[in-house]
């Protein structure tokens, strides 16, 4: 793959990839670019760490606080949910309901429950409902 860099302070900064197929290299570049400039920090039991959004299953609101669920751990964030929706990494995330922003790459499966509600089960075991209002967006985001 050829690589060109143009230094021009009048142009908008962007990375354009032309590839014959989506390889792991392309994904790595996308991941690197989407995470650039984003520094999310989360606190878990007096320990503050730098959070890689790709590893986050979902961002949830509990008791007015925002948490990032990574594996079985729940890191508290300072950001609000609407701020997280606008972050550069949001291409991986989709709003499931008023208090949950889920990472598509961390979703394991969808399930139907009685009443027609759709449940998302994440790879870390966390479950949450997709509200009827957001179902349309979720379907669009996964390409349906």
């Amino acid at each position, binding site marked *: 793959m050829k690589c060109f860099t143009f230094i021009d302070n009048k142009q908008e900064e962007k990375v354009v990839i032309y590839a014959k197929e989506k390889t792991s290299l392309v994904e790595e570049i996308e991941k690197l670019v989407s995470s650039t400039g984003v520094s999310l920090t989360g606190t878990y039991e007096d320990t503050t760490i730098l959070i890689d959004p790709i590893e986050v299953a979902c961002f949830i609101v509990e008791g007015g606080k925002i948490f990032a669920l990574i594996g079985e751990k729940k890191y508290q964030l300072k950001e609000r949910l609407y701020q997280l929706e606008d972050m550069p990494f949001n291409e991986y995330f989709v709003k499931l309901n008023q208090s949950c922003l889920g990472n598509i790459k961390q979703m394991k499966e969808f399930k139907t429950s009685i009443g027609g509600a*759709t449940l998302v089960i994440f790879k870390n075991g966390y479950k949450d*409902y997709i509200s009827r209002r957001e179902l349309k967006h979720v379907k669009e985001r996964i390409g349906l």
Partner: protein
Amino acid sequence: MNKYVKSYLLRGLIFAGFGPIILAIIYLILEWSGVKVELSVYQICSAIITTYVIAFVHAGSSIFPQIEKWSPFKSAFFQGISLYTVYTAGYLINNWIPLKPIVILIYSLTFVVAFIIIWIIIYLVSKKTVKKMNNKLNEINKE
């Protein structure tokens, strides 16, 4: 005001007017069918007000399945109870069904069966959509 209460009232007010319109259509159909309907002023007023309230509650209670914090069972239960209560009260007030145990039993069974069938249809439609969503999700996870 709670946003769900607001939605309940808004939906109720928007669709409540359809109750008396449906009532008028039914009376017209009865008239065209040769059924003799003689009503007093009180009966007409009662029918109009009742159908207005039924339509209000029917439209308003459609918000229950959208309350995110409620489980689907809880939503279905409260919606079912609301609809059953308002319809039964409305029918009895206007003597559209007689106050006899056997009639109430048949009416109640019909209501419950119809309600369950509607929920089963919703469930099956949702299940079909979820199957498609899982196929797409599997494709994404394989990439």
